[in-house]
Structure formats: structure tokens, C-alpha cells
């Protein structure tokens, strides 16, 4: 790659994508540099191209009679393969059977084959379908082409590029994200976890003052509530040779619960209210109601805000007056549904509930069943009570029953509502006070909508040595399932052991030692291994074999697969192999089967078609 002029960060969000960039110039330091959010050209109506700071993460499969050829034209392409962004969102609101939404959640859904064409999930038979991977590629392609169109003399493939993923993305989803970038010629792309990106953005926006706001021995909780997901991380601050160093010590589970759920909850409340008055609300009006609620909540959830906001939803015919459905959203309703519904004052012991599925959830995605974000937070902090135990200079106190953060950084558009900020801080404070601890500090100053992309661009420069880097490596340990040797008992599965192949905290660019355990693999035949992850077992070295574990400790991922190609071996030959792990420079986990005979290496596939 020739010398990059820009550090580019891309936030491939569940509902919106954002691209930010930072120009490295000789005349000022990186801490003074300001990142810029790209205004992304996109179709905003048939035949009209406007710019927006966000690209809605939607793809629309238009029928060939639906739009004229000139109506889908982009400045850089006469016949784009896919309609993505604002126009896709608009068309999809009226024709949902052709709309691909939440592709990112599908990309991280281990229950489906992420390469198979399954979206739109609600499509009827003659609608062409795409895979979650293809949809991701299309969003990224639009961003790449938009960049290349706007900055013609600095093509994206020649710039430093960081793409963000949720901290809770599994190794397979991370690899697929990287594969999407590679398929577009963006081979230089590096991955970064979104809560870390938000933290980098906070560092950058403090213009060097962040060092005065945190102290060695402190733990910072990052709560990133996006459109579709809630992502949690803990970052520990220590001192290393007189300067502050940062380490990401824990990440949360993948929680499919975000700002869109909140807007939808308000919209359905208004729908019920209107229907109680005998008014009929059609499906397309929900969209308009949701949009109105998003705006209304921001004005209602401020101190001294109005008691109610009038909401008006027009009909579809050309007669506007008389056809408008009116209602009002009150402060009490918003308090009740959002503040008490999504951020209730819960006890630490009040863990998220698994409820029986209701008719409201869309078939397929594992949406969080408990909408209480504070409860998910309680579960995270109690589960991670030992997160700082191995670090010097931290008062790790497991008897508290939870990991008490010292400061909290909030990210995501929902925190534009001060009442939600106050509530989440109050809840964490109450837990802290119960443990005789001090109140948490709220770290502020970040751009809630764009900080992930901004932080990603900044991280690009940090990787080149222009700032403090958050360490931490992988925030999980990985295990493969091994059937233990025992005499066969009819009707009884042999007990399973979990063999650690990648320890917690492996840094980027490192390779784990090989576990002292070999598998016999038949050449030419696919062999599957059960695959497990633990976000709490920090102490297991490679080779640790667990014969029992709690449900909380180890979580099963989709199986991994190795096929020993017959290049140097005979078909049917049994080869003894070790399973080894490495974490690449760009932040993905790679597994290899290494022959004990001649050190030949085969890649172990993480993305396997579910059986």
C-alpha cells in the first residue's frame, strides 16, 4: 500500500452505517486533528441523489417493473446491483417483502448459514434473496464507491481502514466481516470492537484532557446502545512506566436490543391508544408513528420538557386535511415505557428473564427476550466480578458480588435523552452505594451518533503509534469438544470434555502454543468439532481440559470443520493433528490443524453450514 493520506473508520451498524476520516498532517499532532464524517451520496428518492451522514443499512430488491433504469442510477454507477440506503428504507416501508433489514444481526446468528441467500426473511417466492454476507458486502461497496467518488485522488483501497464490529461478535462473524472487505479489494481492513471505538472517540474528543479524568486502578464501563444491539465492555486503567495504559478486560453477551426497540415500543403504545378510540392503524402507519416517536421522545426526555407532544400521521391519499390521525405522546407514557420499561431500577440479583416467545418477535433472530437493559447490565457486572483480579493495582473484591465501575461512558443515539442517562447512572450508583462504594463518574463529550466511526478512524492513527492503544487481546477463551475415552455404553453419549486451544487475552498477532493433545483425522473427510467460548475463564492455559462447567461459564458456538486435503497424503489415511489458534494482526481468530507428521497446516473453517 502506498502511503495512506487518510485514516478511515467505518461503523457498519445494524440500522445505519457511518464513515469517518482523519487526515494526518505534518503541521499538527493527531490529538489536535478533527475527524470528519463523510456525507454519503445515496438515492433519497427515485432518480434523486442526496447526501446524508448516515447510510441506512437496508437493501431493497426492487421488482424490474418498479423503477425506471434512470431512477436507480448512482453518480458512480449506471446500473447498481443493489438499492441500499435511504431509498431502500423508504421503498421497504411500503413493500416489506422486498426489504433486507438487520443483516448484521443475521451475520452474527450462528443458527443459520450466513452465506446462504435467506434475506429478506419475510420474502415471498419470486423475490430474489441475498445472504447476510452479501448484504454486508453491498453496504460496504456503497461506502467504498461513495468514498472513491468524493475523494477521487485517494481511493479507499489505498487508505488506512478500520471497520468496527460489536465486541460480542463471534469469531465467525468477525471473519465474515473481514471477508466482505476483502471481496471489495479492501485487503488492508482491520477490525475494532465498537465499545472500544466509542472509547477512542472520547479520548480523541478530549484533546488530551482524558488523562485528567481517569486514574490508575479505575475501571470504566462502556455501554453502547445502538439501533439494534446493546454492547458492553469494561476498560481498566493502569499505570505503566509513568504513563496511563488501558486494557479492555471484559465484554458482554450479544444482546439484540437497541434504540429501535424503544421507538417501536412507543409506536405500539400509540397504536393501541388510537385503536382504543376506534381508529384503524395500518402497518405502513407504524413506520410513520415510529419516526414521530423517535423525535418526540428526545423533546420529552429533557428536564423541564413539555408534558406532551402532539403526533400527527398523515393518510396516503392526496387529501391531507381531515385524513390526519392525531394523538399525543405524554411524558408519563415515555417515562413509563422507556425509563421504567427499558431502564428500570433493578437489583443486581435481578437477572434477565427468558420468557416464552410471544407473537411480536420476528421468526429467526434471537432477540433479547427481556427488554430491561439495566438487568442485562446487572448480569454482565455480576458475571465479570473477577475481571480485574489478575491486574496489579486494582482492588478486586469478589465479595461485593459485582464489578463496581468507577466511571461510565455511554454511547448511542438513545442517550440523547437526558432522563435515560440520569437513570442508568442512578441505577449503577445505587448498586455502588449498596456496596459502600462511591458514585460513578459520567464521562461525556462524545458525539453519540458518530463516535464509533470517529473512534475507528482515530484507532487507525493509534495503530501507527499516534496515541494510547487499548490492550486486551481477545476477551474470551476458546475450547473444542473432546469425547473422553470410555467404554461404550448403549444409549449413553460419551461425556464431553472441553479442551482450551486459545487462552483469554491473546494479543493480536500472536500464536497460541499447541495443546498436548492430538486428534486422528481421516484425509478427505470433513471432521466437525464442537466449539465453545468462555468470557469469564481468564486463567485456563492452552491444553486445559474441563470435564464439567456451568451453563454460564461456557457457551457453545457453531461447530468448526476441518477437511484434510489429499495433497500430500492418501485418501483415507488417518493423520494425527494438533489444533492450534492464532489471533491475526487485524483481530480475527484463526484455527489450524497441524500435522504431527510433517507440520503441514490446514485451515479450520469457522463458518460451517449448520447441519
Amino acid at each position, binding site marked *: 500500500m502506498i502511503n495512506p493520506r487518510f485514516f478511515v473508520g467505518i461503523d457498519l451498524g445494524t440500522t445505519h452505517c457511518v464513515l469517518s476520516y482523519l487526515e494526518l498532517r505534518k503541521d499538527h499532532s493527531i490529538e489536535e486533528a478533527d475527524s*470528519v*464524517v*463523510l*456525507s*454519503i*451520496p445515496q438515492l*433519497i*428518492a*427515485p*432518480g*434523486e*441523489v*442526496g*447526501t446524508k451522514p448516515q447510510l441506512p443499512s437496508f437493501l431493497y430488491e426492487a421488482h424490474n417493473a418498479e423503477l*425506471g433504469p*434512470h*431512477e436507480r*442510477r448512482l*453518480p458512480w454507477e449506471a446500473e447498481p446491483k443493489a438499492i441500499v440506503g435511504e431509498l431502500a428504507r423508504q421503498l421497504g416501508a*411500503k413493500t416489506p417483502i422486498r426489504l433486507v433489514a438487520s443483516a448484521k444481526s443475521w451475520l452474527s446468528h450462528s443458527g443459520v448459514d450466513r452465506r446462504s441467500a435467506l434475506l429478506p426473511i419475510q420474502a415471498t417466492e419470486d423475490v430474489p434473496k441475498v445472504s447476510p454476507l452479501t448484504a454486508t458486502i453491498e453496504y460496504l461497496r456503497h461506502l467504498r464507491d*461513495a468514498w472513491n*467518488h*468524493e*475523494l477521487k485522488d485517494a481511493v479507499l483501497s489505498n487508505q488506512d481502514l478500520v471497520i468496527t464490529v460489536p465486541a460480542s461478535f463471534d469469531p465467525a462473524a468477525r471473519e465474515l466481516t473481514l471477508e466482505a472487505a476483502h471481496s471489495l479489494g479492501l485487503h488492508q481492513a482491520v477490525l475494532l470492537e465498537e465499545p472500544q471505538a466509542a472509547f477512542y472517540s472520547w479520548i480523541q474528543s478530549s484533546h488530551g484532557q482524558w488523562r485528567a479524568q481517569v486514574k490508575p486502578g479505575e475501571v470504566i464501563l462502556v455501554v453502547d446502545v445502538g439501533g439494534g444491539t446493546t454492547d458492553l465492555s469494561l476498560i481498566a486503567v493502569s499505570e505503566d512506566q509513568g504513563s496511563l495504559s488501558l486494557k479492555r478486560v471484559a465484554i458482554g453477551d450479544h444482546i439484540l436490543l437497541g434504540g429501535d426497540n424503544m421507538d417501536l415500543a412507543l409506536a405500539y403504545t400509540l397504536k393501541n391508544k388510537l385503536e382504543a378510540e376506534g381508529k384503524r392503524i395500518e402497518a405502513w402507519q407504524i413506520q410513520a408513528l415510529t419516526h414521530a416517536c423517535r423525535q418526540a421522545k428526545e423533546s420529552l426526555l429533557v428536564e423541564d420538557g413539555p408534558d406532551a407532544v*402532539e403526533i*400527527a*400521521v*398523515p393518510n*396516503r391519499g*392526496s*387529501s*391531507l*386535511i*381531515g385524513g*390526519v390521525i*392525531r394523538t399525543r405522546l405524554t411524558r408519563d407514557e415515555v417515562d413509563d415505557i422507556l425509563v421504567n420499561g427499558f431502564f428500570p431500577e433493578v437489583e443486581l440479583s435481578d437477572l434477565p428473564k427468558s420468557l416464552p416467545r410471544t407473537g411480536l418477535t420476528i421468526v429467526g433472530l434471537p432477540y433479547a427476550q427481556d427488554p430491561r437493559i439495566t438487568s442485562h447490565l446487572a448480569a454482565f457486572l455480576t458475571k465479570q466480578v473477577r475481571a480485574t483480579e489478575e491486574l496489579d493495582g486494582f482492588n478486586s473484591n469478589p465479595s461485593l458480588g459485582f464489578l463496581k465501575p468507577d466511571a461510565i461512558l455511554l454511547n448511542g443515539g438513545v442517550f440523547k435523552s437526558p432522563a435515560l442517562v440520569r437513570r442508568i447512572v442512578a441505577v449503577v450508583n445505587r448498586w455502588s452505594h449498596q456496596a459502600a462504594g462511591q458514585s460513578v463518574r459520567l464521562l461525556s463529550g462524545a458525539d453519540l451518533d458518530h463516535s464509533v466511526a470517529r473512534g475507528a478512524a482515530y484507532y487507525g492513527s493509534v495503530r501507527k503509534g499516534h496515541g494510547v492503544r487499548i490492550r486486551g487481546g481477545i476477551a474470551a477463551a476458546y475450547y473444542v469438544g473432546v469425547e473422553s475415552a470410555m467404554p461404550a455404553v448403549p444409549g449413553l453419549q460419551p461425556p464431553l470434555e472441553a479442551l482450551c486451544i486459545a487462552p483469554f487475552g491473546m494479543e493480536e498477532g500472536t500464536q497460541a502454543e499447541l495443546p498436548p493433545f492430538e486428534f486422528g483425522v481421516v484425509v478427505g473427510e470433513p471432521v466437525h468439532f464442537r466449539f465453545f467460548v468462555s468470557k469469564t475463564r481468564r486463567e485456563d492455559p492452552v491444553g486445559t481440559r474441563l470435564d464439567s462447567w456451568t451453563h454460564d461459564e461456557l457457551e457453545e458456538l457453531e461447530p468448526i470443520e476441518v477437511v484434510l486435503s489429499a495433497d500430500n497424503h492418501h485418501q483415507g489415511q488417518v493423520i494425527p493433528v494438533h489444533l492450534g489458534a492464532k489471533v491475526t494482526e487485524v483481530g480475527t481468530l484463526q484455527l489450524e490443524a497441524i500435522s504431527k507428521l510433517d507440520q503441514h497446516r490446514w485451515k479450520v473453517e469457522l463458518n460451517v453450514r449448520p447441519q
Partner: protein
Amino acid sequence: MSVDVHLVPASLDLYHLILIGSLAAMVLLMFILTLLWLRQKGRIAELQVHSGGVKQPLDSSSQDASDKTVKAVRLSNPEGAMQLLGLLQNEARFVDFIQEEISVHADADIGAAARVVHEGCRKVIRGHFDLVPIRVEVENSRITLQEGFDPSANRITGHIVGQPPFSGTLIHKGWRVQRVDLPKVTDGHDLSIIAAAEIEL
């Protein structure tokens, strides 16, 4: 006919008056803006447009073919006007509202429609134009215009005699479009279609 004013809640009346008043002001603003936009077209090259976060002067040749032929008297560009109408219709149902007979409807219904129109118009205006006041002084305060002031940006009225500097009362602070960022239109796109007919299958 005698009307008991107490039958109608005064606050409700006031509320609707404000709604309708603001709506009228808004409609006026729209037309002024349209005119302003058309007048600006000729000197649009002076404006800076944001394109992809990178400031670059607007390429006037590709934007306005009429520039080449008409210089002395500017021909207003119907395409720009139609595009703005299309945006206002799309976001604010503006054309629907103006085309409708308003006198037969109750104030409450007009008020409800006005919310839709107001919110949408505001979104279009704020999204595509940066509007700044021409004068920063407080309205109704005394100000002085020095010699060489720009008469098209500062309209003097009333007792106009003598030579500048002029002293007078600032009646209206004025508005200027500082930045305009209208959507680009693809070749072959028919701007005369303000809103397509919609047929649900």
C-alpha cells in the same frame, strides 16, 4: 347573530390561530425561498456547496445550462423550482395541502395537517439550506448603514434622503442562504412528477 365568546375556549382559539398563522408564514416563506433560490441560481457559483464533506465550488456549467445563453436577464430555472416542490411534497405533503380547499374544514383538522406540513417543510429547509440572518442586531434597534453597504442585502425604506451613512430602525433581520445542498438528479429523471401516483398491489 350574537355569539357568546365564552362558548369557545379562548385558549383553543388562540392555539388554532397560532397554528394557522404560523402555517401562513411558512407558506410565504416557501415562496420567498423558491424565489430566492431561483435568483441565486445565476450567482450560485459563488456559493460553497458541501459535497462529501469536502468543500468545492459548484460546477455551474453542469448545473445550469441556461447560464450559457442568458446573461443580461436571468431566466428562472423551472427544474429547480419543481425539484423543491417535489421535496416539499415528499417530506411535507406541501402540494396536497395547498391544492386542498381549506375553507370547508374545521380548524382542528387544519391544525393537525399543519403539523405534518410544518415538520416536513422544516426538515427539507434545514436539511438542504443553511439559513443565516443578514443582520445580527436585534430587530427594532437603531443601526447605521455605512457608505458602500450592499443594497440588495439591506433594503432601505421610508424617509430615504441624503447620503450614507444612514441611520434607521432594523425592522427585519433578513435571511441569506449560506449553503445549499439540493439532491442531484439522475439523467432522464422527470422532475415534473412532483408525486408519483401510488397503486398498492
